[in-house]
């Protein structure tokens, strides 16, 4: 298939960016979206032009490195997948495909389609852990956990930290990301011990960095490649409230 790509180009964090158009031909519908981008970059390099910078690594939907806002949606026009899992059969011949970076203040653009998501790491560093050191822990089966809770914790823990939730949200809120981690630990006995401090610190950090408020539009859940539920946000709000009253 032949496509017209409209891609955001920006040489650095402070440079002015703009859309540029690139026609591309003979793309197989069985190719992945990023393989199509590879073909474009090969062509650009051969012509002596600068290739388009974009993040990616595992290319199987798990590392959370790929991003891209495609035709107005984070991770493009398919549900419950990342950009690297998106295939060209989702597009039609002759289509114009618009490709932009995540746009959110806490995720400054590094170059072209690449953004800096270290804000997420900072939030985890603020409290997204159980304070145990290596060694000196009880036998794994000494902590029985209800299967239903373990399953819910796993649902929350499936977050890949890609940032689509922030990119999808008109307020650039990180509530889905933060609540997923808070929930995972809140649901497990190992995490209960520090539950209060954890939620307070993570939320404070999130606010501090400048992520926006949640106004319950649920765009985050709709666009999350791992279908993380907004029920986690409600759980985090309960945790946060409980931390404040006791």
């Amino acid at each position, binding site marked *: 298939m032949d496509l017209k790509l409209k891609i955001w180009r920006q040489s*650095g964090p402070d440079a002015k960016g703009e859309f540029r158009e690139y026609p591309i031909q003979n793309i*197989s519908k*069985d*190719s*992945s979206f*990023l*393989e199509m981008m*590879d*073909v474009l970059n*090969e062509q650009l*390099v*051969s012509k*002596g032009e*600068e*290739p388009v910078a974009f993040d990616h*690594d*595992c*290319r*199987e939907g*798990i*590392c*959370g*490195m790929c991003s891209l806002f495609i035709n107005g949606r984070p991770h493009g026009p*398919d549900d*419950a997948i990342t950009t690297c*899992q998106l*295939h060209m059969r989702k597009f039609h011949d002759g289509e114009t495909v618009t490709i932009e970076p995540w746009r959110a203040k806490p995720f400054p653009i*590094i*170059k072209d389609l*690449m953004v800096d998501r*270290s804000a997420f*790491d900072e939030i*985890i*560093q603020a409290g*997204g*852990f*159980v*304070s*145990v*050191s*290596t*060694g000196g*822990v009880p*036998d*794994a*089966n000494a*902590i*029985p956990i*209800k*299967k239903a809770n*373990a*399953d819910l914790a*796993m649902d929350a*823990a*499936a977050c890949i*930290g890609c940032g689509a939730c922030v990119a999808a949200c008109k307020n650039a809120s990180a509530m889905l990301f933060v609540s997923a981690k808070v929930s*995972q*630990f809140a649901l*497990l006995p*190992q995490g209960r011990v520090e539950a209060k401090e954890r939620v307070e610190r993570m939320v404070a950090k999130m606010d501090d960095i400048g992520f926006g408020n949640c106004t319950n539009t649920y765009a985050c859940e709709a666009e999350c490649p791992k279908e993380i539920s907004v029920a986690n946000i409600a759980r985090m709000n309960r945790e946060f409230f409980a931390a404040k009253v006791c």
Partner: protein
Amino acid sequence: MAKIDSKIPEGPLAEKWTNYKNHQNLVNPANKRKIDIIVVGSGLAGGAAAASLGEMGFNVKVFCIQDSPRRAHSIAAQGGINAAKNYPNDGDSVYRLFYDTVKGGDYRAREANVYRLAEVSNNIIDQCVAQGVPFAREYGGTLDNRSFGGALVSRTFYARGQTGQQLLLGAYSALSKEINKGSVELFTRREMLDLVTIDGKARGIIVRNLVSGKLERHSAHAVLVASGGYGNVFFLSTNAMTSNGGAAWRSYKRGAFFGNPSFVQIHPTCIPVHGDFQSKLTLMSESLRNDGRIWVPKKKEDAVKIQKGELRPTEIAEDDRDYYLERRYPAFGNLVPRDVASRAAKERCDAGFGVGTTGLAVYLDFKHAIDRLGKNVIEARYGNLFQMYEKIVDENPYETPMMIYPAIHYAMGGIWVDYELQTTVPGLFFGGEANFSDHGANRLGASALMQGLSDGYFVLPYTMQNYLADQITVPRFDINSKEFEQTEKDVQDRIDKLISVNGDETVDSFHKRLGLIMWDNVGMARTKEGLEKAIKEISALRKEFYQRVKVPDEKNGMNVELEKALRVADFLELGELMARDALNRSESCGGHFREESKTPEGEALRDDENFTYVSAWEYKGDDVEPELHKEPLVYENIEVKQRNYKTA
């Protein structure tokens, strides 16, 4: 031979590690703060080691290529992690896990290391649970287990199809805790391009900042490299795009020996290749073999019709299907080790029974399991894998059998290390997939995660401390010393050389050509002629690379093509060493299959008399043949047998 000493502690096998720990040197808490450690890699091995060393009080600097340590390729492991807990009460034990691992590795691993691995496997599960890793559980609240290839017990712990992700996030959370405390400093989007040695000891690294393009110098009292595997030398593999062999290769060129470079694993259950623009291969977890049955048509005419799209697999009658693993290996059936399953698939496809448009695929069928257990159960077990398959292939595996084919997956080979995981360069340690490791000539499923975390949480923090005990009086190193100056200049020269070619062929194009040479000659089946041919072809390709490669002239700033070119330049040398090692080892063992050495039934045939050793290659200079050192393998606790998966 004197040059390599595996430093295996004295005493009976089961007491060696305890003896070691009882007698090792320790660093007192006040002194730990004066000691700097560099950790290259934030995967299971690097992440776990950095966190644990930070907890102990050392100053740790951790480096990774991705934008966050949470994205190391360990994240992609699906199936599970082994441990000898014996929770299901099916007769498992530390000894049995040790035995299975040595046997699975086709008797080419070091006994003492493997025993220690099995011994600490249980601590890993305890540690991860304490961190809040949400492993799968039974209704009673205890941990659930599944079985994996090469074992007759259920000893694999898992977190849905995302075990690697959950274990890595556990290590990442421990690392984040230490970063918050200030004991670990994090450097993301950095790539180690060389090792700095001072007076023969590892004292630092040169990294390239992938955003600014600048070279940086970092010094330390010891360096740990846990940079993952080099499967991408084949271009197409299940590894991530940035997975590389560079940190290992550069360490080799600075004096670390390379162990068993030709031992790579080909995983039997990957999604088959679809076309020329394909950038990577996707693994379908081996756990699928628990419930899926592998088959091809019995009749060649059916296979041909399927290849042409005239017949669908569901139209083939039960009697016309050849469940070839169950036929050939009645005891282990679909759960034979990976190397055996991969070769059996290749054998059927080469004989013309393969399916898919290319004829290079076999079926993995869940119909019987769905009939027996119900769709819900299968969905709960493998839902995310089925979804992934459907997104890629556009077919529903609940209704049509999956198509799979072997692909490069894992490197058993790597930098040679002794019992302490120290290389032949003092102060340089290697952990995780990057070392030549505990898996011999073939790794069993769910054992890489175990090894990575064993190295990271439970081995390196002890053994590195033993090394560092006499370094407490050594002051921090000046990064302006002549050694740092010179090493940085060497790196800059490599970069300038690549950019100055300004040729007409892209880096990827060279990488693909290398991959084809490797896959055809240093892949699943190897011959003397093929390997000799590969050595010549790789050497010629390398020459062409430096005459024709095109790398944009962007020295300051991001330059993704340059990153790739540096990695491919290393692969073009590493590939040749792999071929050389495979040529030297004229026996078959594990994943290394020499056509010249097989049983009448076509199974791999070892030559224990001549090859019961680890190959450790020493760099002697560019264009000079490397020198082979042999570490003899001594089996005192296991009777060495021809592997047999036909009967239990």
